[in-house]
């Protein structure tokens, strides 16, 4: 079985994100490292779990992003992916999901994947669209926000779990090939292993220049960015953790939450 996992490079969660002075773009620090979007990391872990059960599985990881996104694909190889495909863009700013999906689909089209996995959304853009759009481009069925996958031996079908609403869990059956977006698994994504890291070091990524792919219209424009309004003007406590703890304690006592 052949699996493609879509992996988005996102800024480290604590790296500052700011609005550019002209208000027209988000500035992330081009020097701060990129890491794997956590939902995609879950997707990769699901793929690795499938391969643990069906060892003849091949896992390929694909990523759209600037040159420095390579580190994220290398990490995917370190975790155990067999091959990395980098659709290399020349800009730092994200293309919209419709563009990313068109590019991923273009790369995936002739490679006959049985399963395409992605995270349910990215932690920066929060669009939740790439997986479902790749599915449409390739005319595949798609289930989003999956929390568990079981591949049936013989591998032509999968049964997946999702949470359609609070307190409910649907068990769905679908035929492969298909696209699944992963919300989270109960398993913690594995760390890269030393042997995989060494293998990844010597392995070339497949590079596709984004400029060589056709780019669909995006039909949308972010005309301005702004910071959210504070609804409460909370006070930031100062000092050492101990000093902050003392101050919080007094506050909680003053409000009678603690005796």
């Amino acid at each position: 079985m052949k699996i493609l996992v879509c992996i988005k490079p996102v800024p480290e969660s604590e790296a500052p994100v700011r609005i550019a002075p002209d208000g027209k773009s988000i500035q992330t620090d081009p020097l701060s490292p990129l890491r794997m979007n956590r939902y995609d990391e879950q997707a990769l872990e699901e793929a690795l779990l499938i391969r643990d059960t069906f060892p003849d599985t091949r896992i390929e990881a694909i990523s759209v992003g600037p040159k420095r996104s390579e580190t994220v694909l290398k990490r995917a190889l370190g975790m155990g992916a067999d091959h990395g495909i980098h659709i290399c863009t020349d800009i730092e700013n994200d293309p919209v999901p419709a563009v990313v999906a068109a590019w991923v689909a273009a790369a995936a089209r002739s490679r006959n994947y049985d399963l395409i996995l992605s995270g349910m959304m990215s932690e920066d853009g929060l669009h939740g669209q790439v997986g479902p759009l790749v599915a449409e481009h390739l005319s595949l069925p798609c289930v989003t926000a999956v929390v568990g996958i079981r591949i049936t031996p013989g591998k032509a079908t999968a049964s997946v779990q999702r949470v359609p609403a609070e307190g409910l869990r649907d068990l769905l059956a679908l035929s492969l090939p298909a696209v699944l977006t992963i919300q989270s698994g109960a398993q913690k994504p594995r760390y890269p292993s030393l042997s995989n890291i060494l293998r990844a070091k010597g392995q070339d990524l497949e590079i596709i220049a984004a400029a060589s792919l056709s780019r669909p219209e995006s039909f949308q424009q972010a005309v301005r960015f702004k910071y959210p309004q504070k609804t409460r003007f909370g006070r930031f406590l100062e000092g050492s953790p101990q000093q902050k703890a003392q101050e919080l304690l007094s506050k909680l006592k003053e409000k009678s939450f603690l005796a």
Partner: protein
Amino acid sequence: MTRPIVVIAEHLEGKIRPATYELIAFALELRQAMPAPIKVLILGNDPEDMAHLIAAKTGLDVMAVQESNRPRYNGDLYKNILAPLLSELNPDYVCIAQTPMGMDFAPGLAHRLGAVCITGVESVYEDRGRILFTRAFYNGKILADICVQAKTAVLTVAPGFFKPSSADPAAPGRVEIRKTPGGEARIRTVETRKAPAQESEIAQAPVIVSAGRGVGKKENLALIFTLAALFPLSAVAGSRWICVAGWLEHRRQVGLTGAVVSPKLYIACGISGSVQHLAGMRDSGFIVAVNSDPHAAIFNIADICIVEDLNIFIPALIEAHRQKT
């Protein structure tokens, strides 16, 4: 003919979901910026009664599309049925709830309509003749105003931003019933499991200590429980991340797809403050947030903000309390 604004109603087990009325509130606000008829579409096994209810409550016209033999939501079928129907209705805007169901079919539907899809819309306004939709990036740290340039836009509307109005309409809207054979879906529901209806202690608790992914690992939840134990009548809750990972039972999840709570005190530990989480706890009396990221969105709604690693801060807090008593 003026092109309509279409609202896709969301329902579950014969009941209209509250998100539907928020969507309608959004559509009414959109209509102020762009006059157009609003049509509500409800698709399902037996949608007629629900269609009449929506028409009576809102005064809007409702189209009920009946697809027999499929009691549960099916994303494949939704797209198959809605795409041709919407092509016929030719709307400017299609409004869908930003829920696990809405997020499942909205992007694919947009693709089939040749429409643009904007997810997580939090507000809409007119600016110099353009209609702008606001959505969040980076778990709510930054907002963007988006202008759409496609003929049709499929929008998913974030929860909790549009309050359904309670005004009684002068007259109920018209209800039109359509039947569709539906056809084959490539996805089949095998089974639906319901979590046993347990009374969740978080609904009543005056103090909630809530854990997010920032706790790092399941074992660290012990800290959260120890902190909660300092307060009489407290409960431990968590973000969806924690509950889906199985670290806490589902009934302890706060947010859009969990419980809506308003305790006197809410202590958010390692929670980023995504809109879906805020939807469940925004109205808490006093909010304390502990997060190692000084820019976390949770700080925008907190009364006391503590920028610390919770694994250092919470033990310090527990120790400080022990010394005082």
